[in-house]
Structure formats: structure tokens, C-alpha cells
């Protein structure tokens, strides 16, 4: 791996963000809207029903963590799509940069894009709704790592689709995470799902991440085996994503679609 090349590709995306205030605003806008929306919904439930008492922290923390996953995946996809939209694909793939360096660069740069959106939203939640995701303590870091790896894995799968099917796959990029949201048990326990879907859901790290989040916030207990399971599953998905990406890249070279991919 050549870190100068990884930095160079990262720099391309940092320049893109820093050159455009609307882009920065866009990164901050959606997570903030999410926090407001879920914050007010949770507050209403809490005030209107004994059943929902004290759930504001759980729902809002879940919303913030889900948004972190969403931003990680979308950031990865967006950076890939930017290359397609700007018709820069050929220039990028004829440069002496390895696929592993491209993936590493996009993965690292996606962290920055994700944090630009999430940090202001997380900070806003403290004075507005009295909710801090940092109440999760040290496990928060591990949960974020698991979420991030899974988000990037989804990003890799969508990027593979873009390589395979071209820009027409763009809509799937936006829809991909919503597909997993119901199965991820973000806002409700896994028992809510029908039994058959529970089996599928257990194959996703999301269930383990959000179950553990609720376990910490409700029971004040930390189950590290669940966290390890979530991280391990995310790593497996990440490796799977890298393999699929490489297969798609090789397929794109066979089909000759890299040379004129654009809008």
C-alpha cells in the first residue's frame, strides 16, 4: 500500500467538500433533521403514554447510531458516484493506484464525511432533548466500529453494482440501507419480527448492535460477547464486500465498461 496515493485520493474528496459550502451543509443537514424528528416523536410518546416513559434516550440514541451507519454507507457511495458524475472514472482507473488503495482511501475519507454530519447532530441532542450518545460509554466506540464496517460493506456492494450495471444502479445506492432497516431492529427488539425474519435478522450485525445498545441503556449491563459478535460479523461482511468489488471490477474490465462510464 502506498499511503501517498491513498492520501491523494482522499485529498480529491476533501477538496470537493472544502470547495463547496452547500456540500458541507448537506452533510450536516440530514442528520440534524433526523435528530429533531426522532427527538420530538420520542418526546411526544414519552409525555403521552406511560408505556413509552423514558424511551426518548433509547430512540434518539438508536436514531443517531442508525444515521451513523447510513452516513458511512452513503459517504462511500457518494464518493464513488462523484467519480462517475464527473466522468473521471477513466482517469482514476488508469492511474497507478491499486484497488486496495482506492478502497482504503474511500473508507478513511468516508469517516470524515460521516463525522462532519454526525458530530453537530449528536451535540445538538444534548441541550435539546437531554440525550447524549456518550452515555453508552466505551462500548459506544466498538458499536460505532461495527456500524462503520457494516456501512462500508454495504457501500462496497453498491459500488460493485455501479461497476456492474453502470450509473443506472444509482437508485439502488439510495435504497440499499432502507432495505436493511426493518430487519436491523433499530427501534424495536428482535422479538417483534416474525420468526422467519428473526432468523434472517440474526445474520446481520445491526441486530446485535442495537440489541446491545438497548441492553446498556435499559439494563445498564455490557455484554461484550454481543459486541464481539457484531464486530466479527461486520468484518465478515466487509471481506465479502471487498471480494464482490474485486469481482465486479474484473467483470467491468472484461466488458470494457470502465472506459466510458459517466452520466
Amino acid at each position, binding site marked *: 500500500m502506498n499511503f501517498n496515493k491513498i492520501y*491523494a485520493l482522499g485529498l480529491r474528496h476533501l477538496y470537493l467538500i472544502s470547495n463547496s459550502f452547500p456540500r458541507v451543509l448537506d452533510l450536516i443537514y440530514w442528520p440534524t433533521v433526523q435528530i429533531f424528528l426522532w427527538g420530538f416523536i420520542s418526546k411526544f410518546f414519552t409525555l403521552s403514554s406511560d408505556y413509552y416513559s423514558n424511551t426518548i434516550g433509547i430512540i434518539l440514541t438508536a436514531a443517531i447510531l442508525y444515521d451513523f451507519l447510513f452516513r458511512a454507507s452513503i459517504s462511500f457511495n457518494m464518493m464513488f458516484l462523484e467519480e462517475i458524475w464527473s*466522468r473521471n472514472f477513466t482517469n482514476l482507473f488508469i492511474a497507478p*493506484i491499486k484497488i486496495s488503495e482506492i478502497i482504503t482511501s474511500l473508507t478513511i475519507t468516508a469517516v470524515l464525511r460521516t463525522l462532519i454530519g454526525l458530530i453537530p447532530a449528536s451535540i445538538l441532542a444534548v441541550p435539546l432533548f437531554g440525550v447524549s450518545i456518550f452515555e453508552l460509554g466505551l462500548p459506544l466506540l466498538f458499536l460505532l466500529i461495527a456500524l462503520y464496517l457494516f456501512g462500508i460493506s454495504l457501500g462496497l456492494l453498491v459500488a460493485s453494482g455501479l461497476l456492474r450495471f453502470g450509473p443506472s444502479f444509482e437508485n439502488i445506492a439510495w435504497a440499499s440501507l432502507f432495505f436493511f432497516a426493518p430487519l436491523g431492529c433499530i427501534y424495536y427488539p428482535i422479538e417483534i419480527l416474525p420468526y422467519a425474519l428473526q432468523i434472517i435478522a440474526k445474520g446481520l450485525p445491526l441486530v446485535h448492535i442495537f440489541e446491545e445498545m438497548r441492553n446498556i441503556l435499559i439494563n445498564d449491563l455490557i455484554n461484550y460477547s454481543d459486541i464481539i459478535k457484531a464486530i466479527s460479523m461486520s468484518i465478515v461482511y466487509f471481506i465479502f464486500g471487498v471480494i464482490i468489488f474485486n469481482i465486479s471490477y474484473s467483470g467491468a474490465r472484461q466488458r*470494457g465498461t470502465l*472506459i466510458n462510464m459517466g452520466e
Partner: protein
Amino acid sequence: MYIQIKNLTKKFKNNFAVNKISFDIEKNKTVGLLGPNGCGKTTSIGMLLGLIEPSEGEIIINNKNLQSYKRNELLAEINFASPYIELPKKLTVKQNLEVYGRLYGVENLNSRINEISADLDIKSFFEKNTGELSSGQKNRVSLAKSLINKPKILLLDEPTASLDPDIGDFIRSYIQEYRSKNQVTILLASHNMNEVERLCNSIIMMKEGKIIDRGTCSQIIKRHGRNNLEETFLKLARSKDEL
């Protein structure tokens, strides 16, 4: 030979885009790749750039096989410019050159950027977003990017397409000047016959994925009994007997 192409073939489903072409390019020579639209020029260039996997055949660059040698090491010595691909529109000219200079591992990057921008007269719009430039300015920036790593092999796909005669002449003159000062082997795909006659030491004519003729411009013109390369091109492109 610096570039050797042996039986290079690319088949898409049942269609041969490139069909067993073989040619050599000597070091520091400029070879024109001519042919009607869809004859396989872009596919051939794509294979030379490692963007398209050949179905058969070999590409040997400086005695190293592109398919089996470390692709990145070979790509570090190659570059490509075409008006049909673009640099990121929202980055300034300077930022684009910096990013690509780093991707190509260029040493003393700032001085190289200054040198190439002075040569191509792009400093006046250095801080402008690339997407805001005129076609002529974009072409010069694209050429600057393609020369940022001082490539030993330069592939040019219609470098002056859609440019006015003044800018087109500037680009052609610059390529001539650059070639005289640097060690560079050029493969030029173009539909501008005057450009090909002016820049190329020899030409390869393609049609329907095959090479139908090759030689110097004067040899080919003479062989087909025409007055200039444009007439020769038309004769070869329209004839049904050349394959």
C-alpha cells in the same frame, strides 16, 4: 521495440471489437491510429491502458507483459488524454493537477505543476473550477494532467476534437515541441488527417476491428493512388474489399 502488440483481440459477446491485431511502436516514435467510428481504436487504447481485459493476445511494453507484470508499475509510465473523459469539475485546475501528481507519485510536484502550467499557458485559470473552463482550456488542462508524470508512453484520443483552429494548432505545436524535448512514445487516435500527417511518423489504419493498412503517410497515400491522407482514409473506410 518499445510497444509490441501481438494478436490482440477483444470479443464482446459474439462481436469482435478488435480482431487479432499486431503492431510494434519504436521508442520515441509517434504512431497514428486511424479508422472510422467503431473500428476498434478506443477498445485498443483501453486495452493498452489496462482498462479492458483482452480476450486474446499480448501487450508488451518495454519487454514487460501488461497482463502479467505489475500493472501499477507500468501505468506509472503511461498517461492518457481525451476530450471524452474529464477531470473532477468541482476541483480547481491546480487541485486536479496536485491530486493526479500525487497519484502518479511525481517528485517535486509543485515545480512540475509550475513547469507544465507555464508550458501550456494554463496559469491564468489555475484557481478556477475545471468545470467552468471552455473546451480549449479543458483540453489544455487534460493534456497537462496527461504529462504530469512525464510519461514514457502517451496515448492521445482525438486531442484536438471540437477545438477552434487556433487552439488546435497550439495543442499540436505543443505536442511536437514536447516530443522533441522529451523521450516519449505516442499513440495518437484522431480523425483529423492534417493532424496525423503533421504529428505521426507512421500510421495504422483499422476497420471493423482489423488492421487494413500500415506505413508512413506518404507510403499509404501512394499505395492507394490518392492525393492526401483524407482521400485515402475515405477510400479505405468506404471500400468493401479492404478486409
